[in-house]
């Protein structure tokens, strides 16, 4: 439809984005509208404060982590393309899409989804979730309702269970292995992005 394609033209690099992430035109449009809604200063990019304005997000225990996941290390703002790329992780996995070897793994593959989640734990990007990082996450999730000893015990046990190479930290492979029974494809999906 004419109107749609013209509004699609407003979006820079819309076609490449669609190609790269697999979103349809309607999705890109919708995400762009949301982006503009969040971008109160009309700067064309989002800052952490813009995210912070979302009320429910501020109530989320790991809200801050999620926000920081949108921003690559060092950068203070996220443009629309990055915004869409991050959200592409939450598209439902397509099982029967044939991929030739040349294409990079799509953003919504199971591995990429897990990697995204892993990076939320692993703040210092050393490829492992150390005990301290796990404790931080637990503290955030349990919201001060437990004592330090309890946290320590839980973290201890979690690492015990997952840590196969005995390095007292959880690597990405161990992380993936511990979640092999969980249906990630089902869990990490936002429905309307299908």
């Amino acid at each position, binding site marked *: 439809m004419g109107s749609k394609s013209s509004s699609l033209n407003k979006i820079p690099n819309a076609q490449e984005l669609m190609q790269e992430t697999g979103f349809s035109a309607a999705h890109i449009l919708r*995400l762009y509208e*949301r982006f503009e*809604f*969040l971008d109160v200063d009309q700067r064309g990019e989002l800052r952490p404060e813009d*995210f912070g304005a*979302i009320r*429910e*997000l501020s*109530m*989320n*225990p*790991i*809200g801050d982590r*999620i926000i920081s996941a949108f921003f690559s290390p060092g950068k203070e703002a996220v443009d629309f393309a990055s915004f869409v790329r991050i*959200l592409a992780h*939450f598209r*439902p996995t397509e099982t029967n899409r044939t991929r030739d070897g040349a294409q990079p793994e799509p953003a919504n593959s199971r591995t990429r989804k897990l990697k995204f*989640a892993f990076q*939320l*734990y692993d703040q210092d990007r050393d490829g492992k979730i150390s005990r301290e990082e796990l404790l931080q*996450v*637990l503290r955030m*999730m*349990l*919201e001060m*309702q*437990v*004592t330090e*000893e*309890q946290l320590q*015990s*839980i973290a*201890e*046990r*979690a690492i*015990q*269970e*997952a840590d196969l190479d005995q390095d007292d930290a959880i690597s990405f492979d161990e*992380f993936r292995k*511990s*979640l092999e*029974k*969980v*249906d990630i*494809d*089902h*869990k*990490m*999906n*936002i*429905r*309307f*992005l*299908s």
Partner: protein
Amino acid sequence: MPSRTGSHSPTGTGKSLPERGLLLLMVLVLLEGSVLPLGAASSPDISHQKNVDNHKVEDEKNYTKKAFPVLDLDYHHIQTPFEISLWVLLASVMKLGFHMIPRLPGIVPESCLLITVGLLVGGLIKLAGEKVPPVLDSQLFFLCLLPPIILDAGYFLPIRPFMENLGTILMFAVVGTLWNAFFIGGLLYAVCQIQPANPSELHQLEILPCLLFGSIISAVDPVAVLAVFEEIHINELLHILVFGESLLNDAVTVVLYHLFEEYSAAGTVTVLDGFLGIISFLVVSLGGILVGAIYGILTAFTSRFTSHTRVIEPLFVFVYSYMAYLSAEMFHLSGIMALIACGAVMRPYVEANISHKSHTTIKYFLKMWSSVSETLIFIFLGVATVDGPHHWNWTFVTVTVILCLVSRIIGVVGLTCVINKFRIVKLTTKDQFIVAYGGMRGAIAFSLGFLLKKEQFPMREMFLTAIITVIFFTVFVQGMTIKPLVELLAVKKKQEAKRSINEEIHTQFLDHLLTGIEDICGHYGHHHWKDKLNRFNKKYVKKCLIAGERSKEPQLIAFYHKMEMKQAIDLVESGGGVNLPSAVPSTVSMQNIQPKKPPPAKPVEKALPKMTKGREEEIRQILRSNLQKTRQRLRSYNRHTLVADPYEDGFSELLIKKQKMIELEKKIQHMNNYLTVPAAPPDSPTMCRARLASDPQAYSSKPAAERVPTIQVDLASPQSPDSVNLMDEFRRADQQEEDQGLMMKPPSGQSGPNRPGEEDRGREQQKLTRCLSDPGPSADEEEDEPFLP
């Protein structure tokens, strides 16, 4: 009662020959014995009664003195309870019997065998010339036999998969059942009307009775589904789909049944009636759920106050649930949905409030009752079949069977096409086949047919025959073949493993993540509402319904607590070795008790985190040095150097002992508060005291080497060896404290020298001894459900 002396040749092979023979003997005796009293139900032993009466009358008139009756037979006094017990006993013995026969349970599902037994018993009764008691009388069935099964299903319903697939389940239940009913009813009518030249009795059948019949026969039966699916261990998704459908289609069935029954007399159904029917459906289903939820909340609230009367906790669960069912039935709402709602709503709160033992009691009672009910239902089906009255009509019956199959397949396939557009995880052809094939009919259909009045429905007998044929077909043919088909099609089986703490943590994390992303996208989806519900639950509901501190306990902590408990129990059961490899918790005795689940593959030992080598060495050092110290003291043993002279002043010894006990108790309390939010405080002080005073466990498994060569006070002393040991423990404990600052507590000495240093162990063993007598919640996938999804 006559009894046969054994002239039976035992069947079966192998070593348990005498056992089998005995069992067979018992079974036959029971059968024989049951026939007569049950038959006697309808033809009472009038003569005997009359004699007694006569005697009595005569006595009164003549006062002739008779010999005092030393032994008298008065069957009627106990007749009804006796018969009921006999039936239940028969059912249970049959169940036992099946599992003794080697390969049979694998090939033939239990339900088939039970129906066969019912046929046999019915046949025997008929042969004996007695009248078969109307056992599947709808009162008995709907009020007594069905509720336990449904409550069991509802209480242990896996909420998370159920909610995730709710849309699909509802589609199958509502639209699928409607489709089935109209398709079968309509086509049957059409078939009955063909051959106008050759009028048969079928032509009398009107459209409305046909539709009524269609609605009766179209509903998938939860009892039959449960009975068969329990044995094939199919993956969770399929299980919940078929099972959920069988539960939720009750509302549809109730409405359709009443609608058609009401208007069968009138002969027509107008659009208005149809509209009212739809409204009625909404009222029936939502009303049923509401009634159930109200009772569920009542139960949860009541359980909040039961901390002082733990013994009757299970009673509240059962009685409130039953009342929910009855109340719903009173208003002609859907009783099944009420029960499901009641069980599902009350469960998280009740489990947070009740003790371990009550939990176990509820679980086992529910399983027991539902098992017995199910067995009885199938046996009665067999008996009722023999009873008749039957009216076999080839056309009608065969067409019905074929139509049932066809409509189910078309229905499932058609609905899946529509549903798959909305599902993330699509249903494959294999899944569809299993869902279609698993649509079994059962006793509910029969009872509903039985309820029809003969005057209104002259074709009632024909209906009953057809219903029974369909039931037999689905249970026997489909029931027996579904297992090999599942193997053949390589359908995914149920995953046995338990949830690890990692999964729990990460799943929660992902939940939060998804909620956050949804908020960023501005999309009010699934996660958003779930999160809102959780928040509401945490803020308001839990405070009201959960007693004390537990209301603030976060889900993760509760889960962790449960895991640790299970593990500690497993450790004790497996003997508590020194060096246990890390793996999945053992499930040795707890799983064995469960009637329906098969024993797990292998008991693997697990444990508590290992200590590093250095630490172990350290502790060994400490112990060794301590041992030396006491030995030294012992060498210079002199009755006067002991703190308290055991030969003389027993009183001072007692005082010191008491003092030490109090101190120790304080320490234990202090320890106890570490790991958990104090749950069930009334237990701990008493248990602690009991443990300290007389628990043999605390001392039994201590290796001899470690035990301080105790002052073998030879028994002129009033003290028991135990109390002297106690003294030693205290002394040693104190010494440890003074010397090393290490808390070495006496009960923790129990698992060997390598562990005592860890505070965790001490704590766990306390929790352990608290629940040693009762295995507690067993390792079960139902258990692993977090309180709220």
